[in-house]
């Protein structure tokens, strides 16, 4: 296998691992969420919502 192919393959594997980690991270966080949210978590979620609401794709475009 030539070096360029090897590098491309390594990059693809790292990308897949990254996506899998992200997905499993979300699921893990959800599974761990078997308790009431703390004040800090509620505040963090409020910030997340505010941030998302400001995103372009949350705005109607008809």
């Amino acid at each position, binding site marked *: 296998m030539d070096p360029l192919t090897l590098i491309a393959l390594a990059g693809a594997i790292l990308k897949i691992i990254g*996506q899998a980690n992200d997905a499993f991270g*979300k*699921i893990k966080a*959800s599974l761990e969420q078997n*308790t009431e949210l703390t004040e800090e978590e509620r505040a963090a979620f409020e910030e997340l*919502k505010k941030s*998302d609401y400001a995103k372009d*794709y949350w705005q*109607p*475009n008809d």
Partner: protein
Amino acid sequence: MKTIQRSLACLCLLAILNACASVAPGNDPVLVNAQRTARTAHTSFDFLFKIERDNDALVRQNIPAVHTAVNELRRKAPKAEADLWGAIETYRTNRTADNKANLNTYLAVIQNLLDVAASYTQQIQTKAKAKGH
């Protein structure tokens, strides 16, 4: 497209896990489940709005009713989320039967929006797949 499919699979799994996850002893199941639903709802809306915008031309051209409906959902979702979180906070600070009933009302509203969001997501995904996106 594979990213959309993978993300959708993760969302479905997340929703299933949300539904099945237990509640730690000492925590109020009503509150924990309501907070879970609220978080899942926001994630689901965000996912739908993003894939709809990412496929804007395709959706407008092929399933214009979905484009219109998703825009309507964009208008409704923030208020529905705010109402639900308001009801959650009211119940959290004063756990009466009335406040629980009020919370259930807003949970039902968000669940309806989640149902239509899932339907639109599925339609967009199907159309994008058919068009090779």
